[in-house]
């Protein structure tokens, strides 16, 4: 409610690169020198991250995983999988959630949230694939499952195929922004007309790989603690990914408003509260549903007695502390139309998703192994993960500062009316 006024003072890009037209935020043509200078302008923390990340990359690809990770034969997957892949994919769910809400479910008022969400998701997925290059032993063979030897009985094949296809879909969905930036009107319009098909494909692919990430662990019932192992794991991962997606859109909007307010147009700013409260309402309801089905899993396997153990206490912390309470927080935020509650709930939910993914893939995994055989991340593993997150922020800023993400390109403002019409168009 109070975030409406553009606040140029918090905007980090040097004002000299801005045109006088603060609303559209279109940059004037920069000289090459200026472009390089701008690209090199980095926060010291970010710069450190990039340098350390580079160092980690060199170490990883010269000395191998054994040097930069604490992975071993009992613990083959560390935080690069738990956070970079599992959390990364879950948190990038905002793309399909927002585009589906806007284009399929007909919530046109969320339109301004679509592009930032798609961009976040695109960068997210691209970085997931990027991060996988560190984790897998032979990254140059990553296309093998798709084009060379298809292990169709593997859930990982399914994940790989869907992530690959969805990354393509996200790229095409994001493409119009780039084309608008480049001024390629004709191609932009052709790509733009694919919106609905891409959205539907996106939802299908997201449903599949979000759930399949949970299903990855179905094959190891003896290794995952019974409270977290359930035949409903795919459903849990999918539903929680929706919560994550909704929360990330709110969170991303929150950050954009704080740091990139000047880049936003009137529509984006005006719709912001509507998007936030709309998503808060949805997230509250979905989270509560997720809370209920978590108990269905416990009941289905009759795991009640485990609740009295240490793992049980931790399970309660996750399910009550990171699902039920954020749901209530969202609900209060929506009912009272209180943005603070919604923002707190969004961050809370995101943390909850991270906790859940870490639980399934690390804390509850190998639970029967003695503690000296358990895994704890290596310094360089944490560096690489932080590096990937840093890259995400950097890329988002880089693109959102240039392309029409947070505002509608003036040339295409009128096109938005028919954006919801399908390419193959029967709509009219």
């Amino acid at each position, binding site marked *: 409610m109070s975030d409406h006024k553009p606040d140029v003072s918090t905007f980090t890009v040097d004002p000299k690169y801005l045109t006088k037209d603060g609303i559209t935020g279109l940059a004037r043509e920069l000289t090459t020198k200026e472009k390089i200078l701008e690209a090199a302008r980095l926060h010291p923390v970010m710069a450190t991250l990039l340098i350390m990340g580079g160092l980690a990359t060199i170490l990883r690809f010269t000395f*191998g995983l054994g040097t930069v990770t604490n992975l071993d034969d*009992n613990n083959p997957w560390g935080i690069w999988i738990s956070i970079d892949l599992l959390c990364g994919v879950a948190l990038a769910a905002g793309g399909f959630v927002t585009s589906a809400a806007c284009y399929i479910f007909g919530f046109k008022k969320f339109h301004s949230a679509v592009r930032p969400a798609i961009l976040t998701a695109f960068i997210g997925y691209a970085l997931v694939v990027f991060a996988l290059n560190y984790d897998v032993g*032979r990254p140059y063979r990553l296309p093998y499952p798709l084009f060379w030897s298809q*292990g169709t*009985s593997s859930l990982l094949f399914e994940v790989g195929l869907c992530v690959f296809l969805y990354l393509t879909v996200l790229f095409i969905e994001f493409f119009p922004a780039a084309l608008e930036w480049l001024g390629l009107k004709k191609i932009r319009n052709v790509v733009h007309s694919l919106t609905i098909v891409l959205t539907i494909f996106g939802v299908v692919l997201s449903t599949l790989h979000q759930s399949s990430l949970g299903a990855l662990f179905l094959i190891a019932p003896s290794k995952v603690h019974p409270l977290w192992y359930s035949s409903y794991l795919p459903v849990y991962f999918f539903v929680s990914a929706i919560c994550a997606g909704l929360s990330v859109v709110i969170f991303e909007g929150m950050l954009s408003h704080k740091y990139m307010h000047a880049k936003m147009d009137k529509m984006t700013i005006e719709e912001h509260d509507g998007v936030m409260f709309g998503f808060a309402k949805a997230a509250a309801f979905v989270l509560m549903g997720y809370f209920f089905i978590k108990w269905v899993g416990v009941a289905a396997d009759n795991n009640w007695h485990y609740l009295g153990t240490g793992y049980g206490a931790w399970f309660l912390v996750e399910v009550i502390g990171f699902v039920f309470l954020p749901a209530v927080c969202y609900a209060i935020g929506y009912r009272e139309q209180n943005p603070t509650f919604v923002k707190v709930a969004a961050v809370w939910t995101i943390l909850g998703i991270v906790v859940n993914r870490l639980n399934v893939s690390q804390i509850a995994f190998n639970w029967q192994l003695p503690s000296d055989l358990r895994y704890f991340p290596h310094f360089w593993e944490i560096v690489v993960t932080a590096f990937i997150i840093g890259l995400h922020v950097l890329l988002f800023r880089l693109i959102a500062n240039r392309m029409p993400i947070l505002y509608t390109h003036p040339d295409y403002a009128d096109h938005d009316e028919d954006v919801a019409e399908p390419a193959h168009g029967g*709509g009219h």
Partner: protein
Amino acid sequence: MKRRSFLGLVGAAGLGASLAPAAAQAAGNTHFTGYKDSFGVVFDATRCIGCRKCEAACQKVNDLPTPKKPFDDLSVLQDHRRTDAKTYTVINQFANPAAPEGKTFHKFQCNHCNEPACASSCFVKAFTKNPDGSVTYDASLCVGCRYCMVACPFYVPTYEYDSALVPKVQKCTFCHPRLEQGLLPGCVEACPKEAMLFGKREEVLRLAWERIRSNPGKYVEHVYGEHEMGGTAWMVISPIPFAQIGLNEGLGVTPAPALTAGALGAVPIVVGLWPVLLGGLYGINTMRERAVKKEKAEAVAAAKQETQEAANAKLQDELKKAEAAAQKKMDAEIKKAVDEAVKAKVAEMEAAKGPSEGDQKEAD
């Protein structure tokens, strides 16, 4: 295309039964019993004396690096060891007060599942269950994702973490190349006690049960691996509960591929139905939108017309009024003009009378 894939495609088209009856298999009710005549091994923990001859033989026949501590150093048995990328099998020692010298040993190596979790989890088909019972790994396909290591319930596959760009997964091969030459697996051949009973899986399983039955009280009445995770080629019989020799007794009997079959089965249904559901939702929304738009347009049109008519009516009215007013004005003007004309005439006539008073007087 492989013959199998082709037949499968035909089968999928519903023609399989008529074209290739041998290939027709109904998934719902099919029970896979594994390769008949595949090999198996039963490790008899009552026989093992922990001499590590099998470890030495394994290192030799597989050309593995020589370990730091020699194989005749039996002190390593005190630690609970596991296999690694340079060791395919290890012997571990466990306490058993009832056994001679108070110790029972267990040999750890790949169990060569009937339905391997590693193969089921591999997204490049790098693992193969061979007809001889062995589960082998093809490094030329491996991407190095280590999902096989996550999936294996026995913690068998190991990984060359020290290799930067060409790491391989390593595990016992059941000496597949030796089996093909008609030789025994290295460890089996080396064991001085014949603690590993080698033969056709069905046969060694039968013999294992025979041993259990003919020595009451000597063994736990269970062949570990007969049913665990759908059965394994390497099995264990033990004098003490299997948990006490480091084996997980809670693995269940569901084979690994069956654990994921449900989730995989849901995939095509999502692909098939989501477009229908989402398309439907989209259709409903556009239809509603269109209806709203149309209603709006009609309402606008109606309103427009009404306004037009009202305006027309008013115009007419105004026109009439104006006309009337004009007429009136005109009449008044005419009257005025006439009056003025008359007046003027009279004045003229009066003036004319003046020079001739008589006329004027006459005119009054």
